[in-house]
């Protein structure tokens, strides 16, 4: 036995053990066997996220408004204390206006589709993987949020709840690679499948029948086909149409109505029952 080989053997043993462990964890997680165990870990981490996210908002707000700050300084020099008071009052009013706008949006969404109950949630984090588009919200199974529930913003569809813990949930966005939503266009009534993963965060509507004359500017809505989303939720607007007579179908590029970069508050539709299509995948009698 050559003792000089020992460190080399230990090194490759470490590599083998770590890679093996990671692969086993991945497989267990993909088959849903680790949800309970890691849910316990994720909950306290979510509490930390909530605090950190609040701090980050404050810093981002301060950094995004240097021009206002400079303007305010110039005014203070001229009008001194009086303007200072007015500025403070103005800031308070803006805060109230923001809250009012949020409540108004929520009210409007609820009025448009009164048949659905919504749970308001704050966005507290984003997916750490650059290849996956998802967000973390501060409402979980304790608040009635369940896997598969549709999530929307005041402007349009956001995605679907992918995983929940007691106090948080991860939402897969419609811009993610894996996202495929049956959609309908507002004017032409053409149907197709909206897929994520396009450059610049846009969506590609595929399998549109050539008989439809799709126009730029048409609104894309959920069609309700497949039973995963309620019918009629705004997704976005057509910005480009790719029509070729040589193809069997045409495609349209859709810009999502929701600005995912500045998304702060979302609504989870809690009483929509997704259709269970698994019964069609099992042969009768099984």
């Amino acid at each position: 036995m050559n003792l000089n080989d020992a460190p080399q053997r230990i090194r490759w043993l470490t590599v083998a053990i770590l890679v093996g462990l990671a692969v086993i964890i991945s497989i267990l997680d993909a088959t849903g066997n680790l949800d309970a165990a890691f849910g316990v870990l994720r909950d306290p981490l979510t509490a930390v996220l909530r605090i950190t996210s609040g701090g980050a908002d404050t810093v981002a707000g301060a950094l995004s408004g240097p021009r206002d700050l400079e303007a305010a300084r110039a005014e203070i020099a001229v009008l001194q204390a009086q303007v200072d008071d007015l500025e403070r009052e103005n800031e308070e009013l803006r805060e109230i206006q923001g809250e009012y706008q949020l409540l108004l949006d929520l009210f409007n969404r609820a009025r448009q589709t009164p048949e659905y109950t919504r749970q308001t949630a704050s966005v507290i984090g984003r997916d750490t993987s650059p290849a996956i588009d998802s967000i973390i919200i501060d409402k979980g199974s304790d608040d009635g949020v369940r896997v598969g529930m549709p999530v929307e913003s005041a402007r349009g569809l956001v995605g679907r709840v992918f995983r929940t813990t007691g106090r948080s949930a991860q939402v897969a966005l419609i811009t993610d690679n894996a996202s495929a939503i049956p959609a309908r266009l507002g004017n032409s009534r053409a149907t197709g499948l909206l897929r994520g993963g396009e450059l610049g965060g846009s969506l590609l509507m595929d399998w549109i029948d050539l008989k439809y004359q799709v126009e730029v500017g048409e609104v894309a809505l959920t069609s309700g086909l497949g039973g995963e989303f309620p019918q009629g939720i705004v997704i976005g607007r057509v910005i480009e149409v790719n029509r070729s007579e040589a193809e069997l179908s045409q495609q349209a590029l859709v810009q999502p109505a929701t600005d995912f970069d500045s998304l702060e508050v979302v609504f989870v539709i809690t009483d929509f029952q997704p259709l269970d299509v698994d019964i069609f995948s099992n042969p009768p009698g099984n």
Partner: protein
Amino acid sequence: MRLGIYVAIPVMLVLAVLQTAVLPRFPILGLVPQLSFLVALSWGLLRGLEEGLVWGFIAGLTLDLFSIGPLGATAVAYMAAILVVSGLVRALPENRFFIPVLMAVVGSAVYLFVYLLFVRLLGFASSVETAVTLAPLIVLNAGFMLPVYWLIYWLDRLIHPRRVEL
């Protein structure tokens, strides 16, 4: 090695929280630098393959807690990148400025390739277009590598002070 692991766990947890809650508010080219990866890579360059792998494993697992991707996928990809970089760095001359940046480029490319391949094998969607969209991340990581590397160099010196014989 053991001390390094005890340091790695809190460091990687803090970085994972930063990565999910803070950095996405300040995106560059629509992307955020992967600080956890750069820290693990720097540790591997400074402390050797084994410690680098352990740091990569912990970094990957903590990040996957905040992702809808399969748990462990990032750990596999990080370890693959550190493994390749550790093999490559032996063939290159020692340099504390150029080499870390070059290794960040190579490591990020290997990470992206292995991650996209691995998640695809587990049934998640990934494509060549995804890889093209994420290519600027390689440049972004390279841009952040030097400050991270020197910070880790300082941390390493703090944890493992060099013995000087008089």
